[in-house]
């Protein structure tokens, strides 16, 4: 445990970083600038992606550029800026575990929340809500009023407290 002693010693003299103990990982400044340049390049692509997606009508391009590039960017930041690759193995494990639990959470909750119907149940309110808003959006051009009106409806309905009006009769509200 002479490690402890050594680190204790250096630590107190203010250059706590010297005792990193993973050998050489001091990337040059150039390396950081290069990473930064790549990140900016990816940012440009991720912004242009949806334009291409819209132009070609392929939504998949939007999704891939948006989220694929987010993952790549995140990987670059984690690897080159946070130096996770130089960290002890167990750090990887607990970070990955937290992330894995979130995927678990998503996939276990999605059948109830993402879906609006399932085995012997129907989320009538959500279906009615979507239909009503989409009708409004179609009627009102979809732009400009969406936010406002949905809020108004919410409140109005709230006080009525009914379940089955579904909102169809309020279609022409605005």
């Amino acid at each position: 445990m002479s490690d402890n002693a050594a680190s204790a010693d250096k630590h107190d003299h203010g250059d706590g970083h010297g005792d990193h103990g993973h050998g050489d990982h001091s990337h040059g400044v150039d390396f950081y600038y290069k990473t930064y340049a790549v990140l900016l390049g990816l940012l440009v692509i991720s912004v242009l992606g949806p334009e291409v997606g819209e132009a070609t009508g392929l939504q998949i391009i939007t999704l891939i550029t948006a989220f694929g590039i987010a993952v790549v960017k995140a990987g670059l930041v984690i690897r080159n800026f946070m130096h996770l690759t130089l960290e002890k193995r167990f750090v990887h494990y607990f970070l990955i575990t937290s992330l894995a639990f979130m995927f678990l959470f998503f996939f276990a909750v999605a059948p109830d929340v993402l879906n609006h119907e399932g085995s012997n149940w129907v989320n009538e309110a959500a279906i009615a809500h979507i239909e009503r808003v989409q009708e409004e959006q179609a009627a009102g051009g979809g732009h400009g009023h969406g936010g406002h009106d949905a809020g108004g409806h919410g409140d109005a309905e709230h006080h009525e407290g009914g379940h089955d009006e579904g909102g169809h009769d309020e279609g022409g509200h605005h």
Partner: protein
Amino acid sequence: MIQFLLPQASSFAADIDNLWVLMSVIVFFWFICAEVMFFWLLVRFRYREGVPAQYVTGNEKHLKRWITWPHGLIILCDIAIIVGAVRVWYDVKQDLPEPDYTIGVMSQQWAWSFEHPGPDGELGTDDDVRTVDDLHLVVDKTYHFKLRSRDVLHSFSIPVFRLKQDAIPGREITGWFQPTKTGTYDIQCAEMCGIGHGIMGARVIIETPEEHEAWLASGGN
């Protein structure tokens, strides 16, 4: 066992009570084993002058098997429990048989309102009978219920049916039951729903077909 405390009044009540017996046998077997072993060890290895404790690490084969064998057996017992539980669950909640009648159940703070099909046997027609806090059923008929809530979460629980289902505002949840015994029993709300949760009870009245027709003929009074 549960039937001695509360009658079985639905077709699947006996299944659930039998599942209880199956699980009790398995679970109490292990419980008794563990407690007997526990108390025997306490008595057998109590402190006695001049008798030192043994040095046992837990890796000795002849001792370790006292852990590994129960371990394996518990897995087998777990499988039995899972199979039993899932079968009952599937019958009660997932696989709905064709209904004779459908009823509507609406919960709100703090009352139950029921929609019964009228003489024509169809729900959603003009002759439907609406009641508050009284559910009239015909014995030995299969029912679907459409459960909804007007405001907050409630839970539609009929203990004699061994049935329980939460009502979620905005959702319509379908379930089934088949009453098998005439009589009048409790319906309780089983999910916290505010100040009046404690009084949110209703009665289920299971009638013979004749009685039910008479009730319908009287306009549901």
